[in-house]
């Protein structure tokens, strides 16, 4: 875990930006808690992989992106969607398998996409998003726009061959891709330290001749800063960066996972290290916002997520025969 001393004051960001980051993190947290609740009520089909505890990563990274920039996502993708600007209600509807969801119920929790905000979709094949993100980067380069792509993936994904192939290609071709490893210590029940000898996934950047940085993934500003640098580089055509964000999932891997493989103290430490709590404290300490404002935000976000859940629950399921549509464009 990243030590206390790395805590920093808010960067040179406007109050609005700081509030924005906080608000987004909170939105994701509330959203995930709502999903958890609905799941417990048997309203969510299939399985879910919650982003709770990792909010600073998606928000810190996406805080640097424009609407026309791209991201790719994973099985643990709700947070990425919301951070990139997808509407919570349509994300929720998708998770519930409703027709009003982004994918009309065809994708579900593990396959959400919102191409309108540059969210190129989640893949449930661990590591499969890296080459696709790289390809989006190639497309940007060929089309000569100044967009960038942020590619989210887990620590577990960093052992896939696609990690190697995609980062190498992005490096060689100087593509505008930010590879963001969300190192939440585990891939299902497997500790990353048992399947990789180096300390940081970021250390692997050396093999591709690109910058690699490991940051406190529970410090939204640290993530923001690292991403900012990487995004700038990418926009200038100077190639990709590998950013590793050290974080932790508060819950089990998926809904059914009691996560007994995690030492109790480890979990407690990380719960104390909650990214939202930390950022809130910092905002208050530094007088960037007042308690009252925070409370107002919290109320608004909570109401908004309730709205989203209501929307999703009230939406109807797709008609069965729609299963046959959308196979070909």
């Amino acid at each position, binding site marked *: 875990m990243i030590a206390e001393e790395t805590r920093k004051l808010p960067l040179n960001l406007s109050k609005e930006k700081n509030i924005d980051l906080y608000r987004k993190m909170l939105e994701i947290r509330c959203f995930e808690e709502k999903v958890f609740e609905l799941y417990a009520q048997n309203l969510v*089909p*299939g*399985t879910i992989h919650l982003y709770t505890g990792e909010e600073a990563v998606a928000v810190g990274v996406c805080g640097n992106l424009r609407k026309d920039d791209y991201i790719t996502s994973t099985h643990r993708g709700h947070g990425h969607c919301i951070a990139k600007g997808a509407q919570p209600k349509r994300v929720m509807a998708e998770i519930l*398998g*409703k027709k009003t969801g982004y*994918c009309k*119920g*065809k*994708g*579900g*929790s*593990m*396959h959400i996409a919102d191409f309108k905000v540059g969210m190129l979709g989640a*893949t*449930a*094949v*661990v*590591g499969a998003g890296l080459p696709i993100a790289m390809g989006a980067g190639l497309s940007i380069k060929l089309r000569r726009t100044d967009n960038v792509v942020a590619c989210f993936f887990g620590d*577990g*994904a960093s*052992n*896939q*061959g696609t990690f190697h192939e995609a980062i190498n290609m992005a490096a060689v071709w100087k593509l505008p891709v930010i590879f963001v490893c969300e190192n939440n210590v585990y*891939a*299902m*029940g*497997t500790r990353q330290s*048992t*399947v*990789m000898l180096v300390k940081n996934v970021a250390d692997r950047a050396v093999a591709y001749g690109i910058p690699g940085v490991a940051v406190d993934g529970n410090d939204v500003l640290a993530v923001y800063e690292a991403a900012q640098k990487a995004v700038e580089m990418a926009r200038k055509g100077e190639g990709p960066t590998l950013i590793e964000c050290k974080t932790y999932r508060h819950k089990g891997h998926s809904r059914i996972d009691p996560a007994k*493989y995690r030492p109790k103290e480890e979990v407690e430490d990380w719960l104390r290290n909650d990214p939202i709590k930390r950022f809130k404290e910092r905002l208050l300490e530094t007088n960037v916002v007042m308690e009252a404002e925070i409370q107002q935000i919290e109320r608004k976000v909570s109401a908004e997520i309730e709205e989203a859940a209501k929307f999703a629950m009230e939406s109807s*399921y*797709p*008609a*069965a*025969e*729609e*299963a*046959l549509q959308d*196979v070909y464009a």
Partner: protein
Amino acid sequence: MRKIAYREALREALREEMRRDATVFLLGEDIGRYWQGAFKVTKGLAEEFGDERVRDTPISESAIIGAAVGAAITGMRPVAEIMFGDLTSLAMDQIANQAAKIHYMFGGQAKVPLVIRTPFGAGVNIAAHHSQSLEAWFMHVPGMFVVVPSTPYDAKGLLKTAIRGSNPVFFCEHKLLYPLEGEVPQEEYTVPFGVADVKREGSDVTIVATLYMVHKALNAAEELEVEGISVEVVDPRTLVPLDKQAIIDSVKKTGRLVVVSEDCKTAGVSAEIAAVVAEEAIDYLDAPIKRVAEPDTPIPFSPPLEQYVIPSEKTIMKAVKEII
């Protein structure tokens, strides 16, 4: 006889073979003591045999199969688990070009006694990347056996045969079968490859079905009986080798064939079985062959959509009635 679940039957096969033969070992993602397998098939095995022989791996499907190949050609009998059948696509070269071809390419010098276990099948709303049935891909790879057990009895007996053999075996399981209970004797037994099992006798129509579809076929058969239609359900149990004779014998008797399989229809399991009969037993047919399979779509997430594409008792019954 005692009843145990399909997943327990598999576990017993693994346990017994690991006890019997020190060269048998397991590898795969999260099969060890912390997770015990995504579907808990390997539960308790790390505790008994240790972490070396029940080996958790990084998420590297290609290297998992490669590791199994390298171990198999140097004297071990690896059983590799790929967590979801859809993910075998990541290891297709190691499976199809290496594992399956090494014995042949090298003129018979090497044996490749390895088993790849993986679950296929839809029905639990986990969408396009975790629900496919891809047996047909592997049937199309010479040099490998393809096993499709539908009951705990078959699962245990076939897995033991697979582990003891000298060839690569692609061992298909089905997510919905894991909790299914069935009779399994305490005593040692194996089930040979290439021997179909007539799961129900009948005289009007033959249904050939595999994996979870065997049970849907049996349900459909029961309902059809009420309507006066006598259905024979043949379960090939292994797709490679395929017990063509058993299928043909049944068709000879009934004159009608419905093939039910959960994979996508085009170029799927049902195509091969239909083709075998069209080639070798067409004269016994009194009606067109029917294929009941997934329409050619990815598996959708939402329950009504998913249910729509999975072959059901209803679609099976409909197909039967169309040719009666």
